[in-house]
């Protein structure tokens, strides 16, 4: 067939027209997806188990014996309810939000910096706590928190709470650090092997440090930062950047970094220290004197959950006294269920993690989504999360 100049032009015209049409179509469709999604009400009664449940969870929250045969609170749940548990590990809150937006998962263990985004985006549905018998035994101070309860409507059940810790390699870092200054003002002493959590929410850690070390800035809540406070936190992080070896967002990355000696001091989670010690790597942890950021995670159910009954059963199971005790010990956090404290293998677990110590948790600033409303007489001048993301991009350079 000879090349016909007319048909080539005609073909290109069709291609251009089709893509323009599709773009307009996609744009038009896109506007329907935002806002409310799915059923806006919670169920009033549970039906039969669907046979499986798809979870998005932090590493260490849903253990079925594959990491360590003794660490398993999933297998008996599967046997009891017939709900096969499939878990997807989310490494950061951003990942979890992204995963939940796909609508392919039933429940998520969301931290406070994800919960409000999920609620606002219509990705999670209200939870009827009457359908979860074990909710009655949850610590009162964990119920109806601002990051998971909006206008009196509950959007989830608390999983537990804990603090970010400072971890160091005692062979490389001298003295016993008890302050965050070892990763901020004094980070040059370990230049090249300091590590920090690779997520914009880490700006709150810098703000927390400034709360103690630069009181003139007047920071009272590390997530409510006006321009001046925000700029100071960013400046501190840029200084820290010069001594950072590598940031970590994937917990396996931090494990291999400490094991290889690439990182020797920085922010961590207790579960990472547990895994390192299990591998024979020497590390120590502490909660520094300035206090710390932390998390209080909420199990939330997707507004597009295909297995809502199994999801409710899972939520009831994970906050049951036995399972909550097991996961709290493995992950290194305070359990949500009061009765779990009697069931932990280490009788002192709840004391160590201050499970019933409200004064302690007053020092821990749970991850939450920064919003424009400062919540005090400053008004709406605080930095929003997307501004934090841009600030974090600037810090890393």
């Amino acid at each position: 067939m000879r090349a016909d100049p007319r048909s080539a032009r005609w073909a290109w015209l069709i291609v251009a027209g089709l893509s323009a049409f599709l773009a307009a179509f996609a744009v038009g469709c896109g506007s329907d997806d935002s806002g409310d999604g799915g059923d806006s009400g919670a169920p009033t009664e549970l039906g039969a188990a669907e046979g499986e449940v798809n979870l998005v969870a932090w590493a260490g929250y849903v253990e079925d014996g594959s990491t360590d045969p003794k660490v398993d609170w999933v297998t008996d749940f599967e046997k009891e309810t017939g709900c096969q548990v499939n878990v997807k590990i989310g490494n950061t809150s951003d990942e979890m939000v992204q995963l939940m937006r796909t609508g392919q998962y039933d429940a998520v263990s969301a931290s406070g910096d994800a919960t409000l985004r999920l609620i606002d985006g219509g990705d999670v549905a209200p939870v009827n706590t009457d359908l979860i018998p074990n909710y009655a035994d949850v610590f009162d101070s964990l119920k109806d928190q601002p990051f998971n309860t909006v206008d009196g409507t509950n959007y989830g059940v608390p999983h537990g709470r804990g603090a970010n810790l400072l971890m160091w390699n005692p062979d490389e870092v001298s003295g016993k650090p008890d302050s965050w200054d070892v990763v901020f003002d004094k980070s040059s002493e370990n230049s090249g092997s300091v590590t920090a959590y690779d997520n914009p929410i880490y700006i709150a850690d810098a703000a927390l440090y400034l709360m103690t070390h630069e009181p003139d800035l007047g920071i009272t809540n590390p997530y409510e930062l006006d321009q001046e406070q925000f700029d100071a936190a960013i400046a501190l992080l840029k200084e820290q950047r010069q001594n950072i070896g590598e940031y970590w967002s994937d917990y396996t990355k931090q494990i291999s970094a400490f094991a290889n000696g690439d990182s020797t001091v920085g922010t961590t989670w207790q579960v990472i220290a547990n895994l390192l010690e299990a591998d024979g790597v020497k590390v120590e942890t502490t909660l520094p004197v300035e206090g710390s950021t932390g998390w209080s995670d909420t199990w939330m159910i997707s507004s597009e959950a295909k297995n809502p009954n199994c999801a409710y059963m899972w939520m009831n199971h994970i906050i049951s006294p036995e399972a909550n005790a097991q996961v709290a010990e493995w992950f290194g956090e305070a359990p949500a269920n009061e009765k779990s404290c009697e069931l932990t293998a280490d009788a002192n677990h709840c004391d160590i993690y201050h499970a019933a110590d409200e004064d302690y948790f007053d020092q821990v600033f749970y991850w939450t989504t920064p919003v424009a409303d400062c919540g005090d007489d400053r008004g709406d001048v605080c930095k929003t999360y997307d501004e934090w993301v841009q600030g974090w991009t600037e810090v890393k350079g």
Partner: protein
Amino acid sequence: MEAADVASSAPRRSAGRRLADLLHGRPRLQVSALLAGPVGWLVIGYLGSLAVLLAASFWTLGELSGEVEQTFTLDNYEQIITEPVYRSIAGRTVLIAALVTLTDVLLALPLAFYMAKVAGPRAKGMLVVAVLVPLWSAYLVKVYAWRTILSQEGALNWALAPFGLDGPGYGNVAVWIVMSYIWLPYMVIPIYAGLERLPDSLLSASEDLGAHPGLTFRRVILPLVFPAIVAGSIFTFSLTLGDFIAPQLVSSTQFIGTVVYANITNNLPLAAAFATVPIMIMVVYLLLARRLGAFEHV
């Protein structure tokens, strides 16, 4: 045959025959039918999604809700142009992409020349397999392997220790090394194909005319294999430009891909605007490559 049989077997053409009749003598329809599948994929899957991306880059986020609002604004482009951090990230990514391309050209040329011109038939076959086998293992496996090699107590530091040297550790140099390694097969194969097409008689003629090997390379081989080099460079340059996984695993520095990835959940318009930067760079690159004849004999 009986009359009844003839009547009942009157031309009742099968569906296939009727389709063939429809297409007969209509060349445009034949071509359209043939191309409908691939063009449909290209338009819907590729061009369509690029068009949506471009549209998203002109949108903005609601002030208090943080949700994407479809109001037209140039703020995102203003931000990536005026704020220095985005310029430096883009510049760094382009620089590393160029370095990776250059490195791969320097590594691929001798290897491809040996494979095309010097190696015997069996060695040639084995070398082609050897070059292609790394492509069979997963991308992540290769990057994690390099992460282990480059780590503080990894093989590279161990090998350099007797000389009192230290490996580069993680960082831009690590990204350069890893990317050069991963994309090398994509450079070797086009150059190898280009050199295969080079007639041996040209090389003998050049020698007969008194040129030493260096001159032959410069004046005979290089001009003829240059389009193939450019074709290979398209792969290494574009793949490095968009990569976001390797930089996160072997460095803490930010590249275009990592910034887009970080922003895509919370600030889709900004991520989309920044994502148009590598697209525009590649459009320019491809136009240049076409000028230099890369699409002639590939």
